[in-house]
């Protein structure tokens, strides 16, 4: 793919340039032949799907990762950044979605937290006046004596930006800075980005909110699958063109949609479900034999919906009917009792006891079923269950005594699935069921989901992998920032329509 020629740069040479950078982690290629130039005084938006390589690129710019090949140039001179400290010295800083502030210190102290050589007995007055001038420089009004604990997220972001400026920053990377902000706060933050670019700072702006890219950016770079797709002045970009470039692939390259097994009876009916500070207005009907996929970008709060149904984070508004009965789970035990299982996206933290044996992990959620009257574990039964899943799911391991931590990601995933299948659920909620596992294991997991619904179960699949969503989902519910943007039938869904809803470019009026 050839990159369209970019508009004439705002001024002379690039302050930071990536030249043909590739980065691999083991067998996975995160970036390949990535080139990008940043000029002083521009706001440069970088967009791409989840997993397109944006984070890896930032980590290379800030010295967290070193490129496998290619060079990074600052002011035209090739540099090797072997850590964030090197990047800071070169004038490159990054702020993230979750700002890091010390709640017990005041604003001025937070700004100069990493400044060294100020001595123990700092001149507090000088410190404060410097802090004030930095806050002024980004165009905020903020009392530097305020304790950080009371700051809003946007103010905390401002403190982080001021902290970066205190060390002479020339390239400021803002990684989804507005993802958790309200509209008003997001506007404030975009103004800061504009103010800084006006002062000659090169701002890299990463966001999933397409509308704000048109508001703030001078140029837009699209990346996909670790590759540079295009860089254009924002005036030459349309939302549709951008989404098309982000999505790219031909649908059906990897996965083809299997026929639907949807039966007429409704198993789960959700009406206007909401949970304070997370999501609101979720309504859906899930039928026996149906796979309903939930699509959306990072921060769409799809997992929160799943956790509400599973009882971890009980809903605060709306109604759920399960198998025709009102249902309100306040603990996972209740959900499990009702036949609802939740396969977590974070198998290391939430799904598996890694040091423990495969056998013990598989029976974890159904332990009571293999206890004798005295509460002792029936070891033969446990062994039998574990062995049968090892064969059925093709878990590659020498024996079921092996600790789960020793297995590959795909096999760990299968052990986690076995744990929930053993419970014989009626509804399985899968949260990113194939993230980080290889293509072969992916196909096996898809088969397993299809078999499950074919036998009459219902599946709710949260996935950020669009081809997967289109291959699995009989219907697709799209969320964005805690709101339901619409439900698409499989036949109406394309990567473009899903992305358009997920990014808020359009919304389906009157859907669901």
């Amino acid at each position, binding site marked *: 793919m050839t990159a369209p020629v970019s508009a004439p740069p705002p001024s002379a040479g690039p302050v930071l340039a990536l030249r043909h950078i590739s980065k691999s982690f083991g067998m996975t290629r995160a970036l390949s032949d990535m080139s990008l130039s940043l000029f002083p005084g521009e706001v440069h938006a970088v967009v791409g799907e989840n997993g397109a390589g944006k984070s890896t690129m930032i980590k290379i710019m800030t010295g967290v990762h070193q490129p496998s090949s290619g060079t990074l140039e600052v002011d035209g001179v090739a540099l090797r950044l072997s850590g964030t400290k090197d990047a800071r010295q070169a004038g490159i800083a990054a702020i993230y979605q979750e700002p890091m502030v010390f709640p017990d210190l005041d604003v001025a102290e937070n700004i100069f937290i990493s400044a060294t050589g100020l001595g123990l007995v700092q001149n507090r007055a000088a410190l404060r006046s410097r802090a004030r001038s930095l806050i002024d420089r980004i165009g905020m009004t903020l009392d530097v004596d305020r304790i950080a604990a009371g700051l809003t997220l946007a103010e905390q972001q401002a403190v982080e930006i001021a902290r970066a400026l205190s060390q002479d920053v020339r390239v400021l990377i803002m990684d989804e800075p507005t993802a958790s902000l309200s509209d008003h706060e997001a506007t404030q933050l975009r103004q800061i980005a504009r103010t800084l670019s006006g002062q000659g700072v090169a701002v890299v702006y990463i966001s999933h909110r397409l509308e704000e890219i048109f508001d703030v950016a001078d140029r837009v770079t699209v990346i996909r699958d670790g590759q540079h797709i295009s860089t254009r002045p924002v005036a030459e970009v349309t939302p549709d063109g951008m989404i098309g470039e982000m999505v790219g692939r031909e649908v059906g390259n990897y996965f083809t949609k299997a026929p639907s097994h949807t039966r007429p009876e409704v198993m789960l009916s959700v009406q206007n479900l909401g949970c304070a500070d997370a999501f609101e207005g979720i309504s859906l009907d899930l039928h026996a034999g149906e796979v309903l996929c939930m699509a959306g970008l990072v921060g769409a709060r799809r997992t929160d919906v799943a956790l509400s149904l599973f009882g971890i984070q009980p809903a605060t508004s709306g109604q759920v009917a399960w198998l025709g009965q009102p249902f309100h789970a306040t*603990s*996972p*035990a209740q959900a499990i009792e009702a036949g609802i299982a939740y396969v977590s996206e974070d198998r290391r933290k*939430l799904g598996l*006891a890694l*040091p423990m044996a495969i056998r013990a992990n598989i029976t974890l959620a159904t332990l009571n079923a293999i206890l004798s009257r005295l509460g*002792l574990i029936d070891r033969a039964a446990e062994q039998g269950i574990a062995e049968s899943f090892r064969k059925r799911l093709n878990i590659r391991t020498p024996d079921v005594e092996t*600790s789960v931590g020793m297995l590959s990601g795909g096999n760990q995933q299968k052990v986690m699935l076995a744990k929930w299948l053993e419970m014989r659920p009626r509804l399985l909620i899968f949260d990113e069921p194939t993230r980080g596992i290889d293509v072969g294991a992916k196909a096996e997991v898809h088969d397993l989901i299809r078999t499950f619904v074919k036998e009459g179960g219902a599946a709710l699949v949260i996935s950020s992998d669009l081809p997967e969503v289109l291959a699995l989902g009989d219907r697709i519910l799209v969320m964005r920032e805690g709101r339901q943007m619409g439900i698409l039938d499989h036949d109406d869904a394309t990567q473009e329509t899903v992305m358009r809803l997920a990014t808020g470019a359009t919304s389906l009026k009157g859907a669901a």
Partner: protein
Amino acid sequence: MTLLRRLQSWEGFLLAALLCIIVMNSILSPQFLTVGNQINLFQLSIEKVIVALIMTFVIINAEIDLSVGSMMGLSACAFGWLFHQGVDPVLAVVICLGIGALGGALNGWFIARVGLPSLVVTLATLIGFRGLARVLVEDRGITDFPDWFDALGQQGFLGPIPFALIAFVVLFVFLWVVLQRSGFGRKTYVIGTNREVAIYAGIDTARHKMIIFTASGLISAFAGLLFAARVGAVRGDVALGFELDIITMVLLGGVSIFGGTGTLMGTLLAILIVLNLRNGMALVNITGHIQTGVVGMLLIASVLVPRIDLGRLRRSKEETA
């Protein structure tokens, strides 16, 4: 190397160490292998080793209970006080066990339901229970317990074997079955390994922790009564600082302070090692302070060895990731 095998190898190491100590001791002193010495060796620390059994559960659950020594003291002092108020001694025993269960449940409530760290909660009750014990007996010593009570602590119950030793064996067998064979034991390990995983699997982790801390208080109170019976007197400083010896034995037995790993057999081996080592050193007139130093060095080794392994494990995982 699986974790299971590593644990087995740690227990194998403890067993080998124990055999070495026993052989050395019997060479050093002909007295060592007599029944009298073996019983005596247990009898002197019997209260601590009983509490070490339940402490194994607490630490595998990734918690700590620092208040056990104070609870032993509180239970012993409460018994002495009640007895001198004219309360029937059998009733007094029941009340003291109740105090233990209640105190343990208090710890458990703050830790499991309120969510405070066990280190802080049980440090507070370490001070609180001890304070109560001192309030009850002030700076007196209380003696003159009924004969049957003293005899329970001081004489053989089954032949030459004292009651406390029998209680220890029974408790060990019972707790071993619970920890290594029951669903409760399995949940203890899972919660200690990763509490979130347990919660997501529908396990009521708060209730589980409540049960363990209540049992810890109850068994500590029981051990405190055994102490009162054996010594035949109570004072405000009964069992002062015992919690550290108890935790030492458990850690030495290969139970990880981070939770999730260890076995009751490991704790038993560590108990036997500490007791035999101290006894052997005493038989050849090595002073108590040096004995303590040797046990301390053993503890450092026990914490260090699994950590080195863990570091290697983590590194190799990163390489494959």
